[in-house]
């Protein structure tokens, strides 16, 4: 196994472990009866150890039981994006985060929370391995 491949593999294992842990820890509210289906991707953003921020494209696909005015709200980023009288809504935008953020789907006028999801920020920490000298016994 090459050094580069090993780092990538170890990194992948680390991310998988994180993803698994976070998937379990993800705070998902009860889905409102007004939502028939919702998909929010990604669930986790992984940044390099050297990068302060994590940039990704958020994609929210929402299917409602009836037409209504809904908004995507991310308080931490002061984002509020609404669509009027839709039964099927899709929100897509590029986000840059430096901490874990909460994504809410709300009814525009009453601010009733229809769905809440937590988007976790993880950090990629490759295991730092040192080359062995293999000097052994110098005979």
């Amino acid at each position, binding site marked *: 196994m090459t*050094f580069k491949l090993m780092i990538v593999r170890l990194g992948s294992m680390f991310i998988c472990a994180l993803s698994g842990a976070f998937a379990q820890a993800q705070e998902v509210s009860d889905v409102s009866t007004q939502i028939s289906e919702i998909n929010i991707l990604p669930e986790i953003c992984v940044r390099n150890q050297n990068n302060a921020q994590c940039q990704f494209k958020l994609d929210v696909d929402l299917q409602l039981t009836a037409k209504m005015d809904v908004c995507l709200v991310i308080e931490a980023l002061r984002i509020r994006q609404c669509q009027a009288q839709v039964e099927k809504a899709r929100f897509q935008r590029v986000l840059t985060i430096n901490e874990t953020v909460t994504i809410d789907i709300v009814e525009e006028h009453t601010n009733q929370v229809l769905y809440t999801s937590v988007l976790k920020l993880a950090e990629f920490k490759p295991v*730092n391995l*040192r*080359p*062995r*000298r*293999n000097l*052994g*016994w*110098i005979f």
Partner: protein
Amino acid sequence: MKYAILFSVFLASIFMSPMSLAQNKTEQTLVEPGSFDFRLTAGFGGIENPLRERDHIRSPLLPEFSYYGDKLYIENLVFGYSLYESPIWLVDAYGYFNNDGYFFADSNTAKVISIAGITQNTWKATRVELNLEDIERDLSYMAGINISHINTWYRTNLSIAKDITSVHHGEEISLTFAKPMQWNSFTVTVQFGATYKSADISDYYYRLTDQENTIAIRQQDIGDTLSPWSSVNLRYHFNPSWSVGLSFKKTWFDSKFKQSILVEESNYSSGFVGVSYRY
């Protein structure tokens, strides 16, 4: 002149090789900082003694220990501190026991070798007029810089060290090429190199002093020497703990050693074969 040759070969080996990442690194060439490693091998092995009237050094056990910290490392009796480390370059300050002292089984040597687990080193009483068995030499500890360059195909190592124990005040320069290979659980490392020893080392260990030369043998200074060597290490891993291994090294003395009354053989072997358990 020999310094220049060794250094030229070292530079040539680096610039002729591809400067890519060490893609051929095997898992066992990497170690996690903070880890201890202890391996005990039971079998047969030792060091062939090229000196006259001395027995070979044999042992049924070969212990090997290593510790790697963030900068520090210990491999058996080698202590090192990393000054610079990248996937391609390693620059260490390090120290090790000069191996010439092992051939003189005086009390100090016996003690250290016993600690190292290489026991049963005995030597015959001589029948010649000159009592070679009475000749004692101290072990010396060398310290210096160890530079390694790792490329896709092999690893080049240049070591420059000086005696820091004021035994002989000599210097050693070693140039080594190592090729590690791995096929699943089977690992092979082939190495060859050459070791330069300054006249201080050669004359201290292999030339009789005036007090020792009781029968007034005419002696010449040995001077600085350059001795090539090659080695092969084979290991098959049954699991992370158990393995079988064979290591063999052959060293060819510089022809100048023929001038020494103490040296009988022009080359010597060292090695070990056995079953290993890694703790």
